[in-house]
Structure formats: structure tokens, C-alpha cells
């Protein structure tokens, strides 16, 4: 079951050369506090899998500016000139992947599949060096699954069972990343005792650690008390 912990302790699990998925579409739904701590602990030689690299010195962009990433698998780097600079200088290896293929490759790992057949990229440089299958007169590119040691994801509301609910467009790639990493850490805007099961977007079984985005304003003890306090008294209201 998911364990409530501090941002510092959760991030200290991540060692140099780890592969880390990071959720968020630009800054929307990015686990900014977890990323901040990863930057503070200065873990190096990371392989990062993310939709984008946000902006310089903003969430995911900090890890780039801080030169903590040696390899990046992503769909778009246009919002962060530093990513492009490091790529051009040969300091950072970048694998650009169509966004839909990136998501399906992550899903393939999470779903226990051996890969994905997609029409995306056929006839383009994305197909270079990849197997092409023709099925019913249509060509498909074989794309391999992507896994990670860690997934750092965001949740608007998370309950102590690890169940996650989202507001607005924050869910983006957080949901699929939750399924594909060995250790999943979720940063919650709000931690509640128990979510309405109808609200849950990511089932709690995928989540290993829960941290509060507001922990700097809360004593750790208070947080733990508030989570465990009424745990058994409330039923999962529908």
C-alpha cells in the first residue's frame, strides 16, 4: 500500500544514473516540488522521460539547466532553449518521439505488452532503423516499450490508499506514467482520507509513495495525524 512520506525522503531513493519519468504537460500537472528536491539533491546522469522540458528553470526545465540529465526521451523541447543548446553541444542525448507514440510506449510497459504497432512515423525519419509491419495493406511501425526506475507524478487529490483524482488538464501523462515505473511517487495538492471511488482516475495500487505539495507549511506530525486519524471511521461515500 502507498506510504506517506516527505519529499526529501522520497527523492533520496533516486540515485545517480536512474531512469525517471516525470509527469506534466509544460507546467500543468508537473510535480514541481518533487522536481525541485531532485534538483536540490543534485542527482546526476539521469535518463528523463517526459512530454517536454517545460521552460528554463521551471519544473522539468530545472533538471536540464542543472545538467542532471544525460539522456532525454520526449516529444517536444521547443519551450526550453537550454535543452536545444545542450543537445547541439553534444552534452545531452535527446530521443524525440511523437507524443502519441511516447504515451503508447509507456502504456505498453505498464500494460505488460511487448511493444506497439503504430502508423505514426511511417515514411518519416522516425522510422529509421525500426521494423515496419504491413497488416491488411497498411504499414505500421514497431515501437518498443519504455520503462523507468521511478515515476514522479502529480495528483490534485490523493487519498491514503494512493488513489488519485485530478482537476482540469493536470492528468495528462501522469496517469500512464503511474503504470510503468518500478517506484511511483505522487505529489498531492491535497491529501484526503478516502476519495469517492467514482472520482478516482489512477487506482492506488500503482502508487508507492505519497508526498504533500504543502508540506513546508505543515509539520510532518500534523500531516500524518490528519491522514491516519479518521481513516476507519469514514466509509467510501458514493
Amino acid at each position, binding site marked *: 500500500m502507498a506510504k506517506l512520506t516527505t519529499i526529501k525522503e522520497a527523492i533520496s531513493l533516486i540515485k545517480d544514473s536512474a531512469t525517471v519519468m516525470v509527469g506534466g504537460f*509544460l507546467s500543468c500537472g508537473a510535480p514541481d516540488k518533487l522536481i525541485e528536491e531532485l534538483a536540490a539533491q543534485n542527482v546526476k546522469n539521469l535518463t528523463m522521460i517526459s512530454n517536454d522540458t517545460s521552460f528554463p528553470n521551471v519544473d522539468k526545465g530545472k533538471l536540464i539547466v542543472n545538467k542532471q540529465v544525460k539522456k532525454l526521451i520526449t516529444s517536444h*523541447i521547443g519551450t526550453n532553449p537550454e535543452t536545444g543548446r545542450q543537445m547541439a553541444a553534444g552534452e545531452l542525448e535527446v530521443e524525440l518521439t511523437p507524443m502519441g507514440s511516447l*504515451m503508447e510506449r509507456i*502504456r505498453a510497459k505498464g500494460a505488460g505488452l511487448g511493444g506497439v504497432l503504430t502508423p505514426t512515423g511511417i515514411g*518519416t525519419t522516425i522510422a529509421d532503423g525500426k521494423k515496419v509491419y504491413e497488416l491488411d*495493406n497498411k504499414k505500421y511501425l514497431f515501437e518498443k516499450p519504455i520503462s523507468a526506475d521511478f515515476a514522479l507524478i502529480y495528483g490534485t487529490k490523493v487519498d491514503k490508499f494512493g488513489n488519485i483524482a485530478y482537476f*482540469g*488538464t493536470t*492528468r495528462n501523462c501522469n*496517469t500512464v506514467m503511474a503504470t510503468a515505473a518500478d517506484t511511483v511517487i505522487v505529489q498531492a495538492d491535497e491529501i484526503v482520507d478516502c476519495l469517492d471511488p467514482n472520482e478516482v482516475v489512477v487506482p492506488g495500487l500503482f502508487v508507492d509513495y505519497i508526498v504533500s505539495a504543502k508540506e513546508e507549511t505543515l509539520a510532518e506530525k500534523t500531516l500524518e495525524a490528519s491522514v491516519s486519524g479518521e481513516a476507519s471511521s469514514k466509509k467510501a461515500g458514493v
Partner: protein
Amino acid sequence: MVVQEGIMAETTSKEGLSKEKIREIIAKRAAKEFKEGDVVTLGIGLPTEVTKYLPENMNVMFQSENGLLGVGKDQTGDDTDPRVINAGGGFVEIKKGACFYDSQMAFIMMRGGHIDATVLGALQADSEGNLANWSIPGKFTPGMGGAMDLVVGAKKVIVVMEHTSKGESKIVERCNLPLTASREVNLIITERCVFRVDLGKNTDSTGVLASKTAEFSENTALTGGLILEEINPMFSLEDIKACTSASFRVSENLKEMEI
């Protein structure tokens, strides 16, 4: 982040059309492609301007790859919520009937053939329906984002761009820039004209090429290529021929482009 706008940079064309006027002509024309109830995904930049010219009472749902079907107006002021954005990262309102979803669902919609039309900018488009809009070798490439999936999956792919860049035709016989997708473009709209792309696919209901089925006949022969459907009255057919490096046929129903 669906796609970069491509080169839309020059200020005023030789014909004296201002950049603003060029964008207006293109966006107005593209807006006519939608019909009531369509679900449409727009690229960033010029394609987004299409929303300005939709008829007031027409209900078109705009889909965004970051997880919103029913994108509304840009939201400004103090009550913006950073938790509701469009694919360009801007804060937006949501329309009645809107819904949120994750990235997987976004691409089930986009790649899976559930989007009625997409409007995208381009660096080049060619007579085979190929599109190049994500990369220029030797220059910084921002990445394709969701553009490759979208172009492959959308039912109708509409390319909007200036006719020329630095005097060079952007409508070419064969793209020499890296492709976004092969043989997927249906319509090319510039400030000077509208080309329909005959993809020669003649697909049946299951998407199988007619040419590969027993029903294939002379009547469905794969002609292919560009067909000039409309001309901006400010230009002549000769003008279009002179500024278009791709070969094309002229439609029997050639019309004036409404500008």
C-alpha cells in the same frame, strides 16, 4: 505544441498583402471547412486564428492534445487557473459539454480516426500529400509533439500556410525537408489559392485501398496530385503557376476564393 507554425515570418509580400491580411484570408477560408458538430484539432499559431471566423451559431468542439475537448476562449485576468490549459500552454475557458482526459485518451482520439479535421501550419506540402512541418536539418528542432499522430489519424488534414517563403514556393513537387507524415494532406490553403490533394487512395469503408481490392476499376484509377480548386481574385492562374513549384491540375469547377 501540436506543431510549430512553420515559416510565417516575412512582413509584407510582393503583392502588397500585409502579414495580417494574409493570415486573415487564410484563417477565414479554413473556417469554411468546418460543419456543425465537428470535432477539430488546431495547430499553434495561424491555425488557432481560424476560431475567429467561425459562424456564431456553429457548434464546433475544439480538441486539445493536453487533455481537453471543448476548448473555449483564452482566459486572461486574475481568475485564471493554471490547471486548465490548451496545447500551447495558455490558460483557457472551457465550453459547455467539455471534458478532460489523459494523454492516452487524447491520442486515441487523434490517432484513432476520431477527429473530423485538423488545421496545421507547414514548412512545405507537396503534390503527393506529404507534409513537412517539424524540422529543418541543421536548425534547432523543437520536436514534433503530437503532430505526427494527428496528421496520420485525423479524417481531414488541412494545411494552412503562406504560399511562399522568401520568394520560394512552399508547395513543392516533393518535400525535401523531413516529413511529418506521408500522403495524408487533403487540402492546402494559402492566401493565393486552395489546392485539393487527390491522394488516389479511394479507400473503402474499412480503409483498404480500392486499388488493392477486387472492386478496383478504371473509374477509380489513381490519378493523384494537386487540383487547383479556388483562386484569390487578386491573382491570376498565371500568377499561381508562376509562384507554385509543384505541378497541378486545374479543377473543372475552379472558383473564386472568398476573401
